[in-house]
């Protein structure tokens, strides 16, 4: 049999080409994260640099300010950072126990069929888009908040409030927390459970004391992921936040303002300080997510070691 040398050569060079092509595409995909941070940084930092065309903004005032008024050109995001942190952590506080209980139910307590159905329901909740949650929140959650407030004799701004934001975020991060917790619980070593059962612990005791303890690293990872989602959630939150001009807000029935709602609301022109400052707010958002992830990951490592 004759070997077509030309063809072999062509195949070889083609093979090399594709190797290079695949690698280039992978590098391109990975470089987007660098591009995102780089460009948002350059654009977000520009209003604070001397010679900014719409009038330089003081970086310190921006980061510590307690008033954000587009109409007066006063931009301070200090209180907005606090609002964002408070809303997200409280949402996590509500969602965390419920999601762990649900995850236990799916993985351990429920009969197999019921557990699978429950998991599908959590997956459906995860697939509901943000705006749809927003419509639900402004149509149902705000009405509920208004009714609670009225029964307490407090007036609200049509139900748009910090409490509404917290409930909404708690619902929205629930699927993330639950699916991560379910995976972690399912991954727990069967031997551990059996040892606990053999020592005379009941099934429920084993689930709550052994399984949850063994799975806590994975559960905590879910909490970090969920918190990141809560920080970055935009359209739905903007629909019920109310956008307070000053703060921070600690009264649950008062309107509030988060980093994301600030970036979205009142977006009209695509030039000028009011537009550029949104990149600065976005930069602050990236920083908040980064630092909270960093700190929580350290906490997670410590928890993992104490096991």
């Amino acid at each position, binding site marked *: 049999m004759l070997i077509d040398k030309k063809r072999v050569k062509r*195949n*070889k060079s*083609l*093979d090399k*080409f*594709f*190797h290079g092509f*695949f690698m280039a*595409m*992978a590098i391109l*995909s*990975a470089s*987007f*994260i660098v591009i*995102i941070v780089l*460009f*948002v940084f350059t*654009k977000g930092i520009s209003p604070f640099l001397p010679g900014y065309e719409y009038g330089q903004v003081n970086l310190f005032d921006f980061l510590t300010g307690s008033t954000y008024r587009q109409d007066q050109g006063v931009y301070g995001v200090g209180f907005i950072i606090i609002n964002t942190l408070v809303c997200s952590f409280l949402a996590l506080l509500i969602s965390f126990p*419920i*999601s762990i*209980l*649900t995850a236990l*139910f*799916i993985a351990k*307590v429920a009969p197999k069929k019921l557990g699978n159905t*429950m998991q599908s*329901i*959590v*997956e*459906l909740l995860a*697939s*509901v*888009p*943000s*705006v*749809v*949650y*927003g*419509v*639900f929140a*402004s*149509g*149902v959650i705000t009405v509920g908040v208004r009714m609670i407030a009225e029964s307490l004799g407090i007036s609200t701004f049509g139900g748009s409030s910090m409490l509404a934001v917290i409930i909404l975020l708690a619902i929205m991060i629930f699927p993330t927390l639950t699916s991560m917790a379910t995976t972690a619980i399912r991954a727990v070593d069967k031997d551990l459970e059996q040892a606990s059962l053999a020592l005379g612990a009941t099934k*429920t*005791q084993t689930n*709550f004391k052994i399984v949850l303890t063994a799975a806590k690293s994975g559960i905590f990872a879910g909490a970090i992921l969920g918190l*990141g989602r809560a*920080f970055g*959630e*935009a*359209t739905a939150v903007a629909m019920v936040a109310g956008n307070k001009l000053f703060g921070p807000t600690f009264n649950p029935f008062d309107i509030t303002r988060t980093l*994301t709602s600030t*970036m*979205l609301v009142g977006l009209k022109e*695509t030039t000028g300080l009011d537009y550029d400052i949104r*990149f600065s707010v*976005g930069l602050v*958002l990236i920083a908040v*997510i980064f630092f909270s*992830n960093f700190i929580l990951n350290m906490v997670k490592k410590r928890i993992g070691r104490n096991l």
Partner: protein
Amino acid sequence: MRREVKDKILQALTYIASALSVFVLGAIIVYLVINGLSLINTHLLTSNYYPQTANSGVKADYVYSEMGDYSGNGHYSKKWGIAVEDIVTSHNDEEISVTYIDPNSPFAHMESLVAGQEGQDSSLEVGSNIQNIYYTDENGETVFLSKVQMGDAENLVARLDEAEGIVSCNFESLGGGIRGSIVTTLYLIVISLIISLPIGIASAIYLHEYANKSKINRLIRQGIDTLTGVPSIVYGLMGVAVLFPVTQLFGATSTSILLGGLTLAIILLPTIISSTEEALIVVPQSLRDGSLSLGATKSQTIFKVVLPCAVNGILTGVLLGIGRVIGESAALVYTTSTVISDFPTIMSQGTSLSLMIWSIMSGEQPNYELASAISLIILIIVFVINFVVKIIGKRLARSFM
């Protein structure tokens, strides 16, 4: 005994927590169905968002036949099969609005007289406001009935009953439709997938088939993993900052659907990569070895043996991507603008279905009914996608057993 009670309580807690999430999903669906279901019909899907004035004439091949009875709102002209009532619009204008049209009515068999659209179906619809009518009297002469002459609905019906034939009429269509947004959403899906699929699949192939455990490759993987955690609103910022100059090369002067599609392409990358990679993992190594030992090169093996086996995983990625595009809103606020467009083109601004919801909910008078109707449509599509992905996943797990 006490232990048993405690166990039961804890167990009950897990049931309650699960019931709570079922309740939330149920509440969302019930709310959307109650508010939006009545709006979902062909009018919603096929008509424009903005009301439009139309000038339509009765088709030449229309043959008059008996009209049915009608006993609803408004004054009914049995002769012409049309019912009208007086309304006051949100702009405080007094209008005569159509409440019913009989299928045999001449008003249901009209074509457009507007220059450039001649011959297109343009019948009067329920909800349209009649501006003026041309009809023929007993002498066969055409009579013009202006808005002032029509007066109110009762008077209009009385005048119509004297008429011998209907010629044409001017009316303002109802609007409130979502056709433009559906088209925009389709554009976004196509643009983002065309760009994201080749890059994503190639990246997944590199990561799974080529990459060894070197530092660079770990860095690449970490970069792609980090993309998943970036909030979509930050992608929006990146879109205008990085990709807008790219769209300017194609002649864009403002934010555009093309820009939105490009931004979405990057948002989809992690999804496409991970679902492709999951499918590549399932392909048995023996298939690759077999192909290589028969003399095929590595790239030949990938294109002819590995990828055809991974097609289900790629399909999953495509479906998840479509779901993500349909649901995305925050990134598009910055990249396609929030201006609802009835006739979107790739270079123009427009809103996807999700963005349209944001647009009508953040206006001064939020339209809950329309928002719920669109939400319901989105939810149905997303749930169907979810279901199909699950079936594919089951088949994928079985395919090489």
